[in-house]
């Protein structure tokens, strides 16, 4: 590992209390960044969830679907650090079900979190990042967490497919926009496969409740068997990709997508 690769950079990570976001915060901290995370939980719950990171990362309680919360988050970062070089739009939820049984309300909720959240975060942070980006090698970097489900369709996952596909192309659109305008901000998407996080566990439990499988482990076994590398990803493996795209080594990468799926979509 190359320590200090992100030294002097300020990073903001949404949904940073669990799973991939938490791992990304830890990883970027390790590489020398100043890290602020946001999530839905109260300050005191956040302190517990952050564990040994609690003393070293900033926290803002903020819902990615709320414009006012985004304004507060930006304000916090600006007041405390006066800069932002890295934005990881990671907060997300899943939704499963056959299309004819999906409720419009649930469809709107997943779009609000997975798509509107990425849009609002980008919109709010871009002016500050455009300033900060000229301070650092390779410029500022937005990393949007899409999914392999943003690349390929999957039965009973259509709403999540739609939301993650939107993130993929939104990212390419802003990448071209920033580049052609000479703004020092790169934008790329990350496409994790099946990652062992609370989101995945909750999703598996829902499949079990629906009678798709007898127990979650059966679903894990099936996923392992369907993945060329034969296992699930660990959050830190996604975090390493996020940290790479965030830093100076990825200076010519923009509008690109990094698939981290153990070969799942190569088949």
């Amino acid at each position, binding site marked *: *590992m*190359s320590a200090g690769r992100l030294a002097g950079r300020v990073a903001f990570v949404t949904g940073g209390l669990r799973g991939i976001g938490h791992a990304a915060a830890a990883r970027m901290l390790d590489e020398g960044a100043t890290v602020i995370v946001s999530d839905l939980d109260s300050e005191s719950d956040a302190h517990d969830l952050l564990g040994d990171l609690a003393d070293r990362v900033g926290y803002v309680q903020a819902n990615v679907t709320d414009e006012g919360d985004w304004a507060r988050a930006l304000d916090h970062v600006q007041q405390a650090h006066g800069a932002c070089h890295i934005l990881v739009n990671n907060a997300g939820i899943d939704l499963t079900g056959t299309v004819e049984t999906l409720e419009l309300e649930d469809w709107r909720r997943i779009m609000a979190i997975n798509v509107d959240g990425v849009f609002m975060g980008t919109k709010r942070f871009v002016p500050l990042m455009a300033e900060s980006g000229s301070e650092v090698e390779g410029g500022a970097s937005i990393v949007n967490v899409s999914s392999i489900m943003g690349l390929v369709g999957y039965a009973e996952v259509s709403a999540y497919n739609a939301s993650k596909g939107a993130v993929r192309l939104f990212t*390419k*659109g802003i*990448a*071209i*926009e920033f*580049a*052609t305008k*000479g703004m020092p901000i790169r934008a790329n998407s990350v496409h994790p*496969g099946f990652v062992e996080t609370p989101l995945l566990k909750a999703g598996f439990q829902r499949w079990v409740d629906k009678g798709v499988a007898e127990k979650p482990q059966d679903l894990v076994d099936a996923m392992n068997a369907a*993945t*060329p*590398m*034969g296992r699930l*990803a*660990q959050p830190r*493996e*996604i975090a*390493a*990709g996020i*940290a*790479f795209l965030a830093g100076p*080594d*990825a*200076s*010519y*990468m*923009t*509008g*690109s*997508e*990094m*698939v*981290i*799926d*153990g*070969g*799942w*979509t*190569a*088949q």
Partner: protein
Amino acid sequence: MTERLAGKVALVTGGTSGIGAGTVARLRNDGAQVFFTGRNEDAGREIAGQTGATFIRHEVSDVDGWADVIAQIRDALGRLDIAFANAGMERGDGSVEDISLDGWNGILAVNQTGVMLTVQHAIRAMRDNPDGPTGSIIINSSMNANRAMGNFVAYSVTKAAVVALAKSAAIHCGNQGYKIRVNAILPGVVETALISNLIASNENPDAMRAGYAGMSPLKRMGEVEEIAALVSFLGSDEAAFISGADLTIDGASTAGMMGL
């Protein structure tokens, strides 16, 4: 110097110039032991002297020479962890209407068969690593795998073919239970000596430079070091779950239309 690749042994084909030479330097700088192949002995000696890497004179499509390349690496260090299948060329290319059969076959021999041989021999070597079958293979494709050029038919076709090769090899390694990852990278226009010379020898170098630079919305070509940095990442354990992927590194050249 970093320790990111400490203890790892790497092979770079076509390492005597351009992206290959830049990658030799970067992998050395990240702590790997590096072997590199190529046909230009003078350049090979010079790069070896500068970087501490080992030059092996070998033409990537020379089938019989491959056993010797691998034997040299294994005899010296007993393992292979990273292989960068980089050697490639476009000499003799043309449009599908005009290309000669010799031109076509020559490019296929290097860009496609040469890459297949690299991956094949790398897997066979990595399979026998002392700590079990482990390693990372990176294929240098091109953004032209996704955006074909009308006047470079063989180049476009071979660069697309090796993306499928990376995926097939990744799936195969998974099926065998090997912890060997295989990925392709798709660079945009990179300012190698080859391109700089082309520009310098053009009757209107400024226009030609602007033409290349303008292929990316960033309005610049990529640098060799920027591509090498991605190879180093994919070669490292940081990319432990990345396999069968194709990674575009082109300053958004192929992300879409540039707009008005």
